[in-house]
């Protein structure tokens, strides 16, 4: 940019000029309307750093070469995972059991909630009228109800209505299914709406019975959404504290989050951090896998019709 020195204007010293140029350069680097949105990027990265810092610190202490969870005593990759013969996640039976309990709940949740949710979504997408609208609305209840209330309600139901179900793993699984079903329905129904009825009609037109149309056309097209919702269910279930706690039968029903919570109130070893790190890793990989599956399976559609691939990541 050239500077015109108007007659009568104060002449700016060369040093000021350099300073001014530097300031201008910086300000245009941050906020240039034609350039990249660097200001937004700065804020975003700052946010990510702040929000992820506690997680990083927690994971860092799972690699502590000492028994403290507060003071850093050097790095040891394996000690609290499987190195320590008494207190590591692998060798402590209680910790091992909670990890297995969490995985068991999540696995059963996936196995029960996913097929139920898919069928419910199919039904709700086809069903018209007042009852259908009401059901659609009720589906949202578990999402908007505070989890604490949900957990309390579930425990009351098992205490007074379905008295044959004791607080147990079974009760916990039922609680998780109740809670995660809505997510499956919402994800699958979104996909159903975006693929529309045309493929089903085409299948029927070509001689497929309704059952064949479902098996050969609708389900394959729903597969990305189904896989995505499976991952979602896994992530929700493995993360859940409140409902698992309400329906817990005691120590043998403890899940990882419950264990971590109680451990923080007593003196604990960094193996708790190791347990937490494993959780973070499992949840992250569930989401990552869901994302990859979604990308891979809707690749063809995105190429032909931009914005048509709908699923959990653009709900």
């Amino acid at each position, binding site marked *: 940019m050239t500077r015109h020195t108007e007659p009568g204007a104060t002449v700016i010293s060369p040093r000021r000029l350099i300073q001014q140029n530097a300031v201008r350069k910086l300000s245009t680097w941050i906020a240039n309307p034609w350039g990249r949105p660097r200001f937004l990027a700065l804020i975003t990265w700052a946010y990510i750093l702040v929000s992820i810092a506690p997680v990083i610190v927690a994971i860092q202490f799972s690699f502590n070469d000492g028994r403290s969870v507060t003071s850093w005593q050097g790095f040891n990759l394996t000690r609290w995972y499987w190195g320590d013969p008494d207190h590591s996640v692998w060798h402590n039976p209680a910790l091992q059991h909670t990890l297995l309990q969490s995985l068991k709940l999540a696995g059963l949740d996936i196995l029960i909630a996913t097929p139920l949710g898919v069928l419910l979504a199919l039904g709700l997408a086809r069903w018209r009228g007042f009852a259908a609208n009401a059901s659609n609305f009720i589906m949202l209840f578990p999402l908007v109800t505070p989890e604490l209330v949900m957990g309390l309600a579930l425990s009351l139901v098992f205490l007074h209505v379905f008295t044959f179900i004791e607080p147990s793993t079974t009760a916990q699984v039922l609680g998780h299914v109740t809670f995660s079903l809505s997510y499956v329905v919402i994800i699958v129904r979104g996909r159903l709406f975006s693929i529309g009825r*045309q*493929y089903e*009609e*085409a*299948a*029927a*037109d*070509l*001689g*497929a*019975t*309704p059952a*064949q*149309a479902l098996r*050969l*056309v609708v389900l*394959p*097209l729903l597969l990305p959404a189904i896989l995505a919702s499976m991952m979602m269910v896994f992530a929700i279930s493995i993360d859940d504290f409140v409902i698992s706690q309400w329906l817990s039968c005691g120590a043998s029903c403890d899940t990882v989050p419950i264990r971590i919570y109680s451990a923080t109130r007593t003196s604990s070893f960094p193996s708790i951090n190791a347990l937490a790190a494993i959780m973070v890793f499992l949840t992250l990989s569930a989401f990552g896998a869901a994302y990859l599956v979604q990308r891979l399976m809707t690749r*063809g*559609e995105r*190429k*032909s019709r931009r914005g048509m691939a709908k699923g959990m990541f653009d709900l």
Partner: protein
Amino acid sequence: MSGGDVELIDLAKSFGRMRAVDGINLHIPGGEFFSLLGSSGCGKTTTLRMIAGFEQPTGGMILLDGADMTGMPPHRRPVNTVFQSYALFPHLNVFDNVAFGLRRAKIESGEVKRRVNEALALVQLTEFERRRPSQMSGGQQQRVALARALVLKPAVLLLDEPLGALDARLRKQLQLELKTLQQQVGITFVYVTHDQEEALTMSDRIAIMSEGHIEQVASPQEMYEAPATIFVADFLGVSNLMTAKALGKDEKGRCRIRLGQFDLVAGQGEVKGGDTKATIRPERVRLEPHGTPGQNRIPGMVERWVYLGNSVQLIVRLETGDTVQALLQNSGDEIPYRAGTPVQVHLPPEALRVLADTGARLALETAEQEDL
């Protein structure tokens, strides 16, 4: 192959209060290329979907070769559809898409392979069998959709605006190909379109629909030359519609009409008397130097002069207040009628048609209302 003779008897469909199809009667003989033409919302697609079985009629019957199909679910009907959006299965490649129907019919795999290849050869897509629909252009996808429907050798092929999503050049080309294909396979085609030119180019017969009923069923030529209603005259191409009064017959049995202060003779159409509409195609209007004497001549003034390449379009305001469009062939000679020139407009009796003024909503008005 069965005959593919389709008969609709008092066929009706209501969506709530709205009567989408209002009791239509149609007979489509086997092997005919039949078009349902109309602006959107006229009930043509609903009619097609009822023949396919996707919609349950609220009244009437659908007969195929004399057999009642009204209550038969779509997967048992011997008709196939080419959808507007093609609806090719995105998770299957071209071969599996085309083979889908054959496999449902439990045809053994060697035969499936032979017939799929035959169908793909018919639409010139032999090299593409391993491609996914998403890897093909719109025109190619359209051909796959055709092959997928034709491979089942249906008695009737239903086409729901199959060329609607393609660009103009490709559409022209595929129009001709579709017509050739239909003559080749000899199947009844029921073709839904809103494009009058498309319908005129391809069809053996056309039904023009408006607000759930059929205005006229005729061959393209008859439809264009002898429209039965004002709606048809207006919908098919530009027609000059002028309000006139019928005065009775002349000695040759032609209709005498009064247009403003001018007495004219209309050689086409018949009306009882009273209010009527006179219509003439733009290409039949003659322009002569101002003051030329003779029958059926009205003085006017050229308002606009539009060069269209192969022809010149002139908008002329008549002394009666009506506006008439004239289309003059571009023969290379200078056309002396620039804007502002007074001319004599000759409406030859053999080209001038009278139509009863039914007060029907016209295509143009309908289209405008839909835009709102």
